[in-house]
């Protein structure tokens, strides 16, 4: 670009502006709350490690490429009497070609191995090692709210999820609305919530706290309202909370009030002291007409005899949970 001499004053002005802007932007970037990089549970922890490992591995080539780009563009720019050499017909080098086929291949091999390992280790349906028996929470994505059912306690809540700290939680996830994705960044990665099937996701919170949770897959008009709070509390407090919700017998979730709840609309947080037996599987398998067509696919699978019209068998319904 043009190289007109600038007066000192403009220069100073520019520098000051840049510095201010830089500080401002720095402030914005570095004071931000990077939930994904601040995990509070083993799953999120491993995923964060993996993110860091993969970033570093990629950087092994990416950073040199960036530097090389800057260097080459600078050095070989056309200018009168430059010193850099010019060889217009040099277009082939076995050594170089080998290097840049080889190095990325090596990195990708390493990355592939790491990825495969973690993929098996972090398989969402794999239980988390822990002394305690996991708590089960059934999650249903509704049109623009989240319903949480606690089958062991027979209580339920909307848009707020309470879990005991240090105890693995087994989420069973389904939907009575378009496909969503259930995501609590600080505890670990997401999984789709789909009508007609039930997904299993194990997470665990290692610290007491209030975490951000949200739907991650677009479900229509008020998708933006599909956020929920996750309260990880001491196990004793968890029990207290359960008793409190149970005690509040004024608010029960019935078939009728579920039907209302399932209607499209936005709402705040609520808790229910009880919910109808088998509600979750009724929701997850709402569209099943009969189980005939599944007879074939269930041979020898975990989902023995589980009728499901989509052909997607599922284990781990409240009622028929095979031992893990």
């Amino acid at each position, binding site marked *: 670009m043009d190289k007109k001499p600038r007066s000192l004053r403009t220069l100073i002005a520019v520098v000051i502006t840049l510095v201010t802007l830089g500080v401002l932007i720095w402030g914005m970037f570095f004071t931000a709350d990077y939930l994904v990089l601040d995990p509070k549970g083993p799953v999120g922890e491993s995923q964060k490690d993996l993110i860091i490992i993969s970033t570093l591995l990629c950087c092994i080539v990416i950073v040199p490429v960036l530097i090389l780009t800057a260097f080459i563009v600078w050095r070989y720019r056309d200018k009168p009497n430059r010193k850099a050499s010019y060889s217009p017909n040099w277009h082939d080098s076995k050594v170089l070609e080998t290097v840049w086929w080889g190095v990325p291949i090596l990195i990708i091999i390493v990355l592939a191995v790491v990825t495969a390992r973690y993929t098996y280790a972090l398989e969402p349906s794999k239980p988390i090692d822990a002394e305690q028996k996991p708590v089960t929470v059934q999650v249903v994505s509704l049109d623009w709210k989240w319903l949480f059912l606690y089958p062991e306690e027979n209580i339920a809540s909307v848009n707020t999820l309470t879990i005991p700290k240090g105890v693995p939680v087994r989420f069973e996830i389904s939907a009575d609305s378009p496909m969503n994705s259930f995501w609590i960044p600080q505890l670990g990665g997401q999984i789709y919530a789909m009508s007609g099937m039930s*997904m299993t996701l194990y997470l665990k919170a290692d610290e007491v706290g209030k975490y951000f949770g949200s739907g991650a897959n677009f479900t229509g008009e008020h998708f933006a309202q599909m956020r929920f709070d996750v309260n990880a509390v001491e196990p004793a407090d968890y029990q207290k909370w359960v008793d409190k919700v149970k005690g509040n017998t004024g608010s029960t979730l019935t078939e009728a009030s579920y039907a209302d709840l399932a209607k499209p609309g936005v709402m705040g947080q609520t808790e229910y002291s009880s919910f109808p037996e088998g509600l979750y599987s009724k929701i997850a398998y709402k569209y099943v007409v009969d189980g005939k067509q599944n007879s074939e696919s269930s041979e020898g699978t975990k989902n023995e005899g589980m009728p499901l019209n989509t052909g997607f068998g599922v284990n781990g319904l409240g009622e028929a949970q095979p031992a893990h």
Partner: protein
Amino acid sequence: MAQPNTHGHDAHESHGSVKSYVLGFILSIVLTIIPLVIVMNDLMAKTATFIVIMIAAVLQLLVQLLFFMHLRETEKPRWNVMGLVLGIIILVTVVGGSIWIMEVNKIGY
């Protein structure tokens, strides 16, 4: 590439003879009857039947390609053959991949 414009393009058009067509026809009839007989009379176990009828279908494909569609007789770089091979690879990917992904999902969690 640049071939002179001679008038007769016979070189690549008059392929096939009555004989080859009749042969192809007979082969294709036979290859159709075999699976029909096997399936209608329950001659084999399920997997075996599946394998045999798929093989018959693929052979039938080759018969049609070679005897009727004259796959071998086109001019030198056989673009259509290359395309077809690639197409079949993608076909297998589409069908196989869908089955793989959707079946495993079926087992689910």
